[in-house]
């Protein structure tokens, strides 16, 4: 973009000043027409070099470049050195990255989530996840094509794939091939930025032999699609940039459009994709600023530039992103375990339905009251008492429909008037719980969970024919209304109201605090003074009264359209994402990433281990490239101010342009993490690592300009070999393959890498003997293992059956009696206990690894199902 120098760097690495551009162009043409293979590659790189360097738009030059470009394309493909190199590297990466992809044959790390989501897509059950849907849908699509049985739910790490015939290999292959595709992308990104084939090859090889990228792309995870789309976007943008002399040409538009598509796809995989959007955005603003300063560009033409970019880089990505959600909603049209995250109108689109209810609410109506500030559900009571405070009947929030959510509205004195008398703003009412005949009551007792002095317990109090007392009185205050009428009179759905306890001047309140087991872990309801308004608002959802006229106006939730659903889901995703604050044994802070202080343990079994850790050589070299870049730019910046004009015969611009873009991309993919409070992991650095590697290859290319061309090839081979060797050393952690303790110890570059070398045997022969011993052991103790298997099987069952199974089990133990129970327990426990000693820690570790990303309470609704069972038992 800079208006620069007509200088260039000679192929031999000696920076030279070129004479006339035209002469150079023609000489290139001549060379090209008689090119041998090797000459040709040199020319190509020179052509590329010029391509990025050439700035003065000069017809002659443009022409020559154009013919050159065409001629390169018109060569038979098998003669193109470049294509052969890319082909070879891609082939290599197919082998390296997909090698033994079927191992391990069980659920690894976050496959728990992303495999599980695939099952839910196939079942069309709505779920909530913090990531946008694209990559998950791709995984689900693969699973569906290859016959994934959705009853397999990927519930925990280590669950076997083979026996339930899970098509995990195609699912992993899908991610793996996306990982493979990143390698040629790296090549072309560097190449098309105007760098030599050497640099491009180096970039591709380093990306290929990067342990963390390999590990991450071999499993059913979102990162390989994310990195692929990010890399694709960067490539498309570089290509677009190369077309800047042909503004508004077909190629220009194609690459601009593809950049936009790439942005949309990246953003639709994970929100981290926003970082590439920021990168491209910054670059776009920079372009527009330069164009604005170019007085040869008329304002009208500038406006065209602006509009073209706005459409392709804003409208297109947003459209792609929304399209993904549209597909997501179309697939997930049934309710599922994500319902509890969404608002009531949203749930109406998920197969739940609500009958139309009469608009006006009269005394004597039986109503259900939904809390607005949380998604906790309905004001609820049941025949169990608090174990703290007053020991009166519990009042909770309960998310599912149930007759225990029904209340009758009474007048202040506890009576119900004859005929219809509608409730107005400011009326004092009582609420009678229909199934237990208790009234909603509050008093000066501490609530069960919240310790704050502003909170008071809310309970159900009274009995049939009890007149009640003043602590049963609540004033209805309408705080938000859709129309004037619903501000004066209490209307179903339309009036949002507070219930103010008249005696204590506190508001009926609920928040996301779970009550203990004795209250079935339902949500706490209290009466709070000076509470935040949002958490004290309620709305009447159903409204039944025998005396309502037939033709009374009815009301129901307005089902949200796509846009409403889209916005709500994104908001919930954002809130949930920000709420992932728990610590995790393998989480890390961004400051530790560039130095690769620590990896992540993914999976371990049978003396094999998968541990996410980078290739230290590549990693440290890429970090060094960043540091060098900053240092050089800083130094030159200061020297400029002091009047030195170092441009190193054009080399500087060469470094600052493409290197600058990769550096900015790295910075945008790295620094924003410092602002995030949520738990972060090493693999969040991988997109930044990709750009750091590209920057390293640019640095390499620039450094190569100072050495003879033969030495350049040697340098390339040397660096690549070291990186490949380093990859090989740590490959067993990547593939989860056999290793020995001594090799493991030798592989630890930093002492902070916490994979346990003691788990490996002293030599490979032990794997064989251990396996043999194990088979023997299994054969001899088949009987003993059976109880353990049973345990497993009913753990895997879900929902009501589980409840039954557990209670039956308990029943059996009870029946045996105390002494016998101990003996029985011992008998059963022995093998299980053994198991607990040996494999349980690993499993436990894995289970918690499973919690890594978004395991918020998927179990909530399930538990509530249990609760409803419990309650029925109680009742």
């Amino acid at each position, binding site marked *: 973009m800079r208006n620069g120098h007509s200088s260039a760097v000679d192929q031999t690495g000696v920076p030279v000043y070129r004479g006339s551009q035209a002469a150079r162009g023609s000489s290139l043409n001549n060379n090209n027409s008689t090119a041998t293979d090797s000459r040709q590659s040199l020319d190509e790189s020179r052509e590329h070099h010029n391509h990025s360097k050439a700035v003065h738009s000069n017809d002659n030059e443009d022409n020559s470049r154009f013919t050159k470009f065409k001629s390169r394309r018109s060569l038979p493909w098998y003669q193109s050195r470049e294509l052969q190199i890319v082909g070879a590297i891609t082939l290599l990466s197919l082998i390296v990255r997909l090698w033994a992809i079927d191992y391990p044959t069980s659920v690894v790390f976050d496959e728990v989530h992303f495999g599980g989501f695939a099952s839910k897509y196939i079942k069309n059950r709505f779920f909530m996840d913090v990531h946008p849907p694209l990559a998950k849908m791709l995984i689900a699509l693969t699973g569906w094509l290859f016959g994934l049985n959705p009853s397999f739910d990927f519930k925990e790490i280590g669950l076997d794939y083979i026996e339930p015939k899970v098509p995990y290999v195609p699912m992993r292959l899908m991610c793996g091939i996306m990982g493979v595709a990143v390698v040629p992308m790296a090549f072309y990104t560097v190449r098309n930025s105007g760098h030599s084939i050497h640099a491009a090859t180096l970039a591709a090889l380093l990306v290929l032999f990067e342990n963390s990228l390999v590990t991450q792309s071999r499993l059913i995870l979102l990162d390989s699609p994310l990195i692929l789309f990010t890399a694709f976007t960067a490539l498309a943008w570089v290509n677009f940039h190369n077309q800047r002399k042909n503004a508004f040409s077909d190629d220009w538009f194609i690459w601009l459009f593809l950049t936009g598509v790439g942005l949309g796809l990246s953003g639709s995989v994970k929100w981290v994709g926003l970082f590439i959007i920021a990168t491209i955005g910054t670059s776009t603003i920079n372009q527009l*600023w330069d164009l*604005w*300063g170019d*007085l040869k560009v008329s304002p009208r033409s500038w406006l065209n530039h602006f509009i073209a970019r706005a459409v392709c880089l804003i409208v297109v990505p947003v459209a792609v992103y929304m399209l993904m959600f549209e597909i997501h909603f179309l697939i997930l049209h049934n309710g599922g375990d994500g319902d509890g995250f969404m608002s009531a109108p949203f749930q109406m689109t998920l197969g739940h339905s609500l009958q139309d209810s009469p608009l006006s609410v009269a005394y004597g109506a039986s109503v259900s009251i939904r809390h607005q500030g949380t998604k906790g559900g309905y004001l609820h009571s049941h025949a169990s008492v608090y174990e703290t405070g007053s020991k009166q009947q519990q009042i909770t929030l309960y998310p599912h429909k149930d007759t225990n959510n029904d209340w009758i509205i009474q007048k202040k004195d506890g009576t119900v008037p004859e005929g219809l008398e509608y409730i107005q703003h400011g009326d004092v009412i009582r609420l009678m719980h229909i199934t237990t005949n208790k009234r909603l009551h509050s008093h000066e007792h501490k609530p069960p969970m919240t310790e704050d002095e502003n909170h008071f317990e809310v309970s159900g109090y009274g009995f049939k024919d009890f007149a009640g007392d003043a602590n049963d009185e609540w004033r209805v205050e309408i705080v938000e209304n859709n129309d004037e009428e619903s501000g004066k009179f209490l209307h179903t759905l339309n009036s949002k109201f507070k219930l103010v306890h008249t005696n204590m001047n506190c508001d009926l309140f609920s928040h996301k605090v779970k009550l*203990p*087991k004795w209250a079935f872990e339902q949500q706490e309801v209290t009466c709070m003074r*000076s*509470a*935040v308004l949002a958490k004290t608002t309620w709305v009447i959802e159903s409204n039944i009264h025998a005396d309502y006229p037939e033709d009374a106006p009815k009301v129901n939730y307005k089902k949200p359209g796509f846009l409403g659903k889209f916005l709500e889901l994104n908001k919930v995703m954002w809130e949930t994402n920000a709420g992932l604050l728990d*610590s995790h*044994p393998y989480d890390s802070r961004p400051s530790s990433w560039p130095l690769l202080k620590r990896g992540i343990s993914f999976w371990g079994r049978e003396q094999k281990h998968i541990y996410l850790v980078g290739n230290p050589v590549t990693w440290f070299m890429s970090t060094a490239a960043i540091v060098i870049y900053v240092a050089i730019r800083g130094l030159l910046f*200061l020297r400029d*101010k*002091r*009047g030195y004009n170092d441009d190193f015969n054009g080399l500087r611009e060469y470094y600052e342009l493409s290197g600058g873009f990769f550096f900015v991309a790295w910075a945008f993919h790295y620094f924003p993490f410092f*602002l995030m*409070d949520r738990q972060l992991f090493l693999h969040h650095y991988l997109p930044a690592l990709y750009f750091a590697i590209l920057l390293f290859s640019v640095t390499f290319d620039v450094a190569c300009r100072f050495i003879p061309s033969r030495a350049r090839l040697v340098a390339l081979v040397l660096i690549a070999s070291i990186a490949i060797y380093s990859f090989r050393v740590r490959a067993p952690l990547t593939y989860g393959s056999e290793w020995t303790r001594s090799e493991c110890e030798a592989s630890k570059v930093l002492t902070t890498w916490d994979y346990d070398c003691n788990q490996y045997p002293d030599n490979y022969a032990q794997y064989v003997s251990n396996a043999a011993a194990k088979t023997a052991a299994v054969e001899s103790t088949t009987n003993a293992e059976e109880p353990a298997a049973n*345990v497993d099987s*009913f*753990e895997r069952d879900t929902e009501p059956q589980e409840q039954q199974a557990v209670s039956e089990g308990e029943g059996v133990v009870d029946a045996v009696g105390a002494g016998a129970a101990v003996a029985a*327990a011992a008998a059963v*426990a022995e093998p*299980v*206990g053994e198991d*607990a*000693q040996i494999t*349980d*820690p690993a499993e*436990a*570790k894995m*289970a*918690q690894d499973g919690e890594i990303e978004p395991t918020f309470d998927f179990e909530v609704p399930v538990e509530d199902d249990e609760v409803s069972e419990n309650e029925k038992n109680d009742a």
Partner: protein
Amino acid sequence: ATGSESTLRQRSTVPKHTPPTDSNTAATEDAPKKVIKSVFTSAEKTNSLIALAGLTALAIVSRFYKINEPDEVVFDEVHFGKFASYYLRGSYFFDVHPPLAKMMLAAMGYFIGYDGHFLFDNIGDKYNDNNVPYIGLRALPAFLGAMTVPLVYMTMREAGFPILTCALAAFFVIFDNMLVTQTRLILLDSMLVFFMMCSIYSYVRFYKTRNNPFSLKWWSWMIATGISIALTTSVKMVGLFTVATIGVAVIWDLWELLDIRRRLTMQQFMNHFYARAIGLILIPVVVYLFWFYVHFAILINSGPGDDFMSTEFQETLKGNTMADGIYVKYGDNITIRHKDTSVYLHSHAHNYPLRYDDGRISSAGQQVTGYSHEDPNNLWQIYSDNVENTKIGNQVKDKDVIRLLHVATSSWLLAHDVASPTMTTNEEITTYSTNEDGSRFNETTFQIILESGGDKLRTMASNFKLLHQSTKVAIWTHSQKLPDWGFEQQEVNGNKNLVQKSNLWLSDNIEGKNASEIDQESSKAVKTRSFILKFLELQGKMISHNAGLTDSHPYQSSPIEWPFLVRGISFWTENETRKQIYLIGNPLGMWIAVASLAVIIGVSGADLLSRRRGFYPLNQDVQKRFYYATGFFFIGWIFHYIPFFLMGRALFLHHYMPALVFSYMVLAAVHGFIFIEGVDGPISDPGPETRPRQLQRAIVPVIAYATGIILMAIHLGSFLFFAPLSYGTSAPSVAGLARRKFLPQWDYHFAK
């Protein structure tokens, strides 16, 4: 000039714009080649002084009006009044803010004869009943709050703005309800804003001497700037925003000096650099530390802040409990208490259930829990891991490997590789009976690592971790309660994260040691500790506690709401009279200020874009004043506002106060930019190398006065309308409150 558009257009003709002259300045004009000492005439200086005096008087009246009301503790007087009392008593307390402002309040109390007997416990406590000279205490912030006004005026004046513009800025600062309410109570913000304005004023003065570098005046104003930013930061850490504002200006200045066209040699440049490093880094650091030194020198007695500090620190305070600590010997029966949650390490003859509710299996061993009450089951006998040499009677040292015997059930404390009851990531802790064989000996050894309190285990004084030898976990507990089977006691488990701060335990008692033994063993002497260690510890604690203030408060707000005044804070209410103090800015004034900030962004954006296209819409001097003076105040606003978005702690409207002052200065400057033609100049002191420059005068047209007066009238009207809520001296009626509710979120009391 009737509007911004037309003025802009007029200014676009650069060369045509001859400096407008004034009849008063004719004499100076005659000799344009002479170096001009001052751009202002003596008549103008007199006018300026009169304006300054009048505004100062108004400021004093506005701050001191009925300062005796209410004679009750209002809002955060609870904290800062209390801290002043602690200073007067000399008892150690802990607060997240640096000490200066609180010490100033204490000094004020000392001079007016207050002895610190009152603790300001609740909002609404009566001062008169408790014999507290609160008027004197409030007078200090009120006075400094009033003095902010002349500083604002003089800063604007020094920056070269006409009297009208300066007066406008000062007037807006005087009659802002938030500034009034917040500065007439015993709070820190008044000192903060005062010192902040001192910094800005000194810096402007310093910048104006830049043509005479290293002169006495240059040095004086630079050091004054340095001291002022140190004082600002010594009031609240928010003062760092002022440091950043000045810092950015200084770095920009240095960057310009580095420019080859300035013809400074590297040596000369480095001299500039070192001078600023001394004046703006070194001196401020010393001043900041000095206040902490005074702080420690005053607070010599043990007090409510002890528990926040390390044991070494507490030992420096008179009457601290650490002095009671006695050395633990092998064979002693001790209690072990968790530092964070204050529960005892406890065990009892009940076992973990074989299977938990989530289906996981436990070892079914004896429970180890955290129990908050004293109980014989809290006693553990301490043994060495060496069976041959039991070391009974020897003192327990750092890094010793020990075993703990639960006395009541006579079983060894043990950790093993089984998941704990509630956390699958952590290890279960259980015990193992002495009656069984010794095969699990290795699982019962723990290394004791002392984090503080010397190298020998001492009760009360030593905080230690218990590291399990074979599986490398630390014994840990957290506030998670166990279910019924664990009697709702706290879960204790083995934490794999060894560096976590909550791994710390302390031993608070040795069973059977009597007082005479204690007296023999312990030295009651108060220890000393180096100032720098004490400072670093306190500073660290302040930062971590400040970040930890994440509890939500009913009146907290998010920064995005502040400039638009979306919500206020209820400071104080009185039920009988229905009076209340509700902190809220002057709504009309603040909204106009926000609009002026938008004008700045719009004008500078338009200017940048047009210059990029080769158009120069602004006269060079006007443009320079616009970026260097108005832009500086705008940067001040940015730096005192935007960083709040990055803070996780609970934030309040009054955090916007420093930024608000800047926004009023910007408002006045923008008014001048729109309505006043040209600028006064040059305003900087001429130096030996300064080329003679033509005198320029700003033309202040009648419309500028007219609009200025309209703005002041709007602002004053709005102030008076909300004054009852700001002073809390009279109770508006319900209807009156409803009229004052411009936004539905303004949640007054007694509104119904």
